[in-house]
Structures are given as structure tokens and as C-alpha cells.
């Protein structure tokens, strides 16, 4: 480029062709707006680990996308093998087999230590209820909640054990004082 004072300065470089990026935008196949709706909801489900996604993925499943990629690439063959054909993603809710229920050692020890009546009326029903909640949380794929239940179970049992021991010590003393 020749300027007014006859200096030659480099002009703008000709725009180099950018390498093809097989993004959804470049493909003009799905833009951000297209993702809203069921597909968007599915993404949210995956992100939050929802065990029962609202819909199965429909956008990376089969040949139409490969065809769109080939067309966008101008038939140069740079997108061979892309995308990997992905079927419906696996449901995250896994079948969980519980080999040992939480706090099973504590329960066994209490069964040995406590009177049968107290164990049958207080400890076992409590374990049963919490264990049901624990199983429900695992079934829903909510491992964090299951962990909270397992910890809470131990805390409450120990609280009751300590309270029972203290009461058994305090009661005779109170009767003596009377």
C-alpha cells in the first residue's frame, strides 16, 4: 500500500482460510437456540446426574449428522470418522447391590449388648427405616444423600446409646437422693 508521503507500508494480510472446525455452529445444523427444549433439558439432566433423563439424545446418533459434516467439509474427507456414532447415552441410574448395609457392625454389636426388647423396639425399627431411605436414595442415584443418611444413622444411634447410658447412671442416683 502506497501512502500519501510515498511510503510503502504493508497492507492488510489476505485472510487465510481458517481450518474447518466441525462445531454445531459451523455446521449450521444446530445453533444455540436449537438446543433449547428437550435436548437442553437432556443436557441439564446429564449435568445434574438425573437418573431418569427426560428424553434420550437425538442429535448425535446417526448418519444425518455425518452427512452434514461431510457437506460442510466440502467433501475433502477431513471429517472422516467424526463424529463417533453415539447411541442413546446410558441411563445413569445403576443397579446397586448392597453387600453390607451401612452401620451393620454397629447394629450387630448393639444386638449383642442390648436387651432383646430394647433392640426389637427401638434399634431395629430405626435401622429399618433409615435403611429403606438409604436404598431409596441409591435407587434414585443420589449417592450424596445416601452418604448423609449413613452418617446420620450412626450419629443418632450413638446419641441414643450415650443418652441411655447416662440415664441408667443418673436414674439410681436420683432415686437415692429422693
Amino acid at each position: 500500500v502506497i501512502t500519501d508521503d510515498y511510503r510503502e507500508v504493508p497492507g492488510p494480510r489476505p485472510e487465510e482460510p481458517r481450518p474447518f472446525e466441525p462445531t454445531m455452529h459451523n455446521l449450521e445444523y444446530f445453533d444455540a437456540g436449537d438446543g433449547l427444549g428437550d435436548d437442553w433439558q437432556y443436557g441439564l439432566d446429564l449435568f445434574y446426574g438425573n437418573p431418569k433423563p427426560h428424553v434420550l439424545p437425538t442429535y448425535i446418533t446417526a448418519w444425518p449428522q455425518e452427512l452434514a459434516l461431510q457437506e460442510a467439509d466440502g467433501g475433502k474427507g477431513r471429517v472422516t470418522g467424526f463424529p463417533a456414532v453415539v447411541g442413546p447415552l446410558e441411563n445413569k441410574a445403576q443397579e446397586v447391590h448392597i453387600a453390607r448395609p451401612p452401620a451393620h457392625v454397629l447394629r450387630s454389636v448393639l444386638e449383642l449388648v442390648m436387651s432383646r426388647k430394647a433392640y426389637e423396639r427401638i434399634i431395629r425399627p430405626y435401622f429399618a427405616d433409615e435403611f429403606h431411605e438409604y436404598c431409596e436414595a441409591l435407587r434414585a442415584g443420589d449417592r450424596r444423600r445416601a452418604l448423609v443418611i449413613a452418617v446420620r444413622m450412626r450419629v443418632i444411634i450413638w446419641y441414643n446409646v450415650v443418652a441411655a447410658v447416662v440415664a441408667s447412671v443418673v436414674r439410681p442416683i436420683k432415686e437415692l437422693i429422693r
Partner: protein
Amino acid sequence: MECRLPSSKELLVLRLLRDHAVSPMYGLELVKASDGGLGRASIYVVLARMEEKGYLKSSTPKGDSEHPGLPRPRYRITALGERALKGAEAAAAAMGGVTALEPA
């Protein structure tokens, strides 16, 4: 014979069981239905004491395929429990709207 009125927690349990008389309730169901009136830590102590007094009757169904593992006992109010609740409510009304009665 010593006669004691049900405690406030016992009354709450009796009321909940009377209101859900159609189906017996689990311990944690009672905790949830009480809306903070009953705690997880103490519910089974209260229920055991009430069963001993004859206010409740528990039944333990066998585990089903959906809920294997330890069976959960269900609690149902007895006739004695209903009488105790009515008596406590009548006493509370006679005392002028006292809702919570503490044992003597």
C-alpha cells in the same frame, strides 16, 4: 394404680395415628407428618414407651420384593390409646384451652 396422662409427644403421636387411622404408619412417617414436633432420634423411644403402655400396637409386615431387607414396623392406635387421647383432650378443654399436657 398410678394413672398418668400422656406426655405432649405421646399426644402428638396419638393424634397423628388417629388422623391416619386408615393405614398404620411407620416411625419416620410420623416424624415427617409431625412437622418438626417429633425427632428422628427419639421417635422410637417414644413409640416403644407407648407400646408398653398399650396406646399403640405395632405390626411388622414381611419384606416385599421392592423393599427387601429389614421390615419396618407399622404402628396403629389402640382403643386404650384413643381413650387416653380423648381423656387428655377433655382435660385440656376443661383447663381452658391447654393444648400440651405434661405427665404428672
